């Protein structure tokens, strides 16, 4: 196999160097700097140390996220060709564009439904699977959609949502069920404005429950068993135990998952882009932002949408702050 021999000679060495070298470099970094910090006066140490630990991460996010973000903000204050400073007019234009307002409505659907149901099913699966002996197979099946690339995702859902006119053989699972079991007319799930946003959100939920489940499951395993025992002895049923003991203790992790999901809901892109490209009133902010940039070639407006998206995250962050101050007090 020519691929392999080429790989063995050209890339394998790089990979080996990377897999061995990268951890070594990272290890040397932290060990070396810790060594230096320990040479500092006692009073200085605690102030210097954290920066060594967070330093590399900060550098990375600065280069790859913060600087582009700043340049986006700057661009959002300029006109289409990046030649003139126009103040907030891009923002005004965007916010008065009915198409954008529609995307905001759709993003709200996403925010609420996607977050809620992904979390709900994620918690359910994590908690329920935890109690059956076949936990691993169940979890892997739920997780599997995550492992499917989004290109294949659109193919999968084609098999679910596809439409044939009434009377023709349905090739989509849902319409098959509708016509053969309920004897009602098939629905164009992706195009029909009554359903399509929800149909798209359902795809996202399907794909992301595995995410919520895996993380929550990791947290669930960390809940001390004696607390559950105590609750059982106190006469609590399994549902009460979940509500009163497990869930509160999972709360920090639920917050993490929910925050992540909310942010992903705000910047959702792939599913809509691939399945409807924003047509049929399904457009969402990130797709709109993309279209403004690459189709309309208007980086200014595109940037403005991006900044609006970021501002929308702030309330979530405030909630997080409260949450982990509370957690700090409890430990």
């Amino acid at each position, binding site marked *: 196999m020519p691929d392999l021999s080429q790989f063995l000679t050209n890339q394998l060495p790089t990979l080996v160097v990377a897999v061995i070298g990268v951890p070594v470099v990272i290890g040397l970094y932290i060990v070396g700097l810790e060594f230096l910090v320990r040479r500092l006066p006692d009073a200085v140490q605690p102030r210097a140390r954290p920066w060594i630990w967070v330093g590399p991460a900060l550098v990375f996010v600065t280069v790859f996220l913060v600087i582009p973000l700043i340049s986006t903000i700057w661009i959002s204050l300029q006109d289409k060709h990046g030649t003139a400073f126009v103040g907030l007019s891009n923002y005004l234009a965007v916010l008065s564009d009915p198409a954008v307002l529609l995307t905001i409505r759709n993003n709200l659907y996403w925010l609420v439904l996607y977050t809620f149901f992904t979390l709900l099913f994620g918690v359910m699966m994590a908690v329920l699977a935890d109690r059956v002996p076949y936990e691993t197979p169940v979890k892997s099946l739920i997780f599997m959609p995550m492992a499917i690339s989004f290109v294949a995702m659109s193919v999968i859902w084609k098999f679910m949502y596809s439409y044939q006119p009434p009377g023709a053989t349905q090739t989509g699972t849902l319409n098959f069920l509708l016509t053969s079991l309920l004897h009602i007319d098939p629905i164009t799930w992706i195009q029909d404005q009554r359903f399509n946003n929800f149909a798209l959100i359902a795809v996202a939920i399907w794909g992301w429950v595995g995410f919520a489940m895996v993380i929550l499951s990791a947290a669930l395993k960390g809940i001390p068993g004696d607390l559950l025992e105590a609750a059982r002895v106190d006469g609590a049923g399994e549902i009460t135990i979940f509500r009163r003991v497990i869930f509160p203790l999972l709360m920090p992790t639920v917050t993490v998952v929910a925050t992540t999901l909310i942010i992903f809901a705000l910047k959702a892109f792939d599913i809509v882009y691939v399945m409807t490209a924003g047509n049929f009133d399904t457009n969402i902010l990130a797709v709109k932002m993309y279209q403004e940039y*690459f189709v309309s070639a208007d980086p200014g407006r595109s940037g403005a949408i991006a900044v609006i998206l970021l501002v929308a995250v702030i309330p979530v962050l405030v909630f997080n702050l409260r949450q982990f101050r509370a957690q700090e007090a409890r430990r």
Partner: protein
Amino acid sequence: TGGGGSTAGGKLGGTVNVLAVWSANEQDSFLAMIKPFEDQSGVKVNYESTRDINATLTTRLQAGNPPELAGIPGPGQMFDFAKAGQLKPLDNVLDMSAMSQQYAPDWVKLGQYNGKTYSIFIKTALKGLVWYNPKTFAAKGYTVPKTWADLTALQTKMKADGTAPWCIALESGTASGWPGSDWVKEIVLSQAGPTVYDSWWAGKQKWTSPEIKAAWTTWGGIVGTPGLVYGGPQFMVSTAFADGANPMYANPPKCLMHNQGSFMSDIITKANAGVTLGTDLSFFPLPDVDSKNAGAHVVAGDLFGMFKDTPQARALIKYLTTPAAQSIWVKRGGAISPNKQVALSDYPDATSKLIAEQLVGAKIARFDAGDLMPAAMSAQYFKDVLDFVQNPGKLDSILAASDAVQATAYK
């Protein structure tokens, strides 16, 4: 010579990066096409394929590392790139006199901006072909319509016979709606004529103008009339364009005609077992709405431009214009060469030969208006199509929205 190219003695060597949308079998054909070039010149061609050429190319251009050569989504974008100075003029690169001999002047002109050549066509396609099953036609006693009136009569007959005449499928991912836009532009060209057509794509003819509106209305006569299109609007918007002709081969057939470009034969034969081109599948040109525009054809093609001027890039783009190069793809099927010197005998089957003849013999050839428009405009155009088939009654507001986009997109 500064231009380098294959004229220099010995091998040129080096590499050239090429970015284009062709993948799968198209990519294979392209690679086959450049293979002789690589062998002769010793230049290594790094071909890179991307579905999202717009984003990829824009990003690379703005970041300062474009590929030397790239496929350009359409003349519309070509104008933008040329205007921004990102495309390199080719007048000194290509042998312009040979070009003007071998290419129809329209094809050369379409690659120009402000009088300078910025891009070339290496393969073309013909739009407005109505695909049908000759066996069914024969069985039912239908004849191929020559005029728009024939067509409407045939439609009515078919409908009365209990089968929907048309299959129309508009779904195509991010470009959903384009098959419908083909209908509209063909009608604009053959109904209002080439002048209106040209000022329309150039942004000088309003969408709400009577001529354009009339074209939509004419199309609306088909898509808006119940029973003329299989499955109605739901089927149209929800079916992938590639699956659009499949109901023609259901048993019994669910529709009888399918208007689509020259590439469709390949898709139909692959997706429907037992369908062979010529016997089960044939085409006739979409009749012209107004007989004064008879012989009008919308064509399309793949543009190629140079973003970085290197000797290797020059050599390759020059090579791509040659009949030797283009006949390679033609022989592999799925392409029609804009180069007149590619022999008709190179086409692999009778149908494609016929299409090539149509293309060469077109009296009024106009390039795909959607590709000529700026990206924002054509995106709106496609969207209009989707809105229109679902809601033909809202034509006025749909066209008004397009006018609004037209007002900014050309700036």
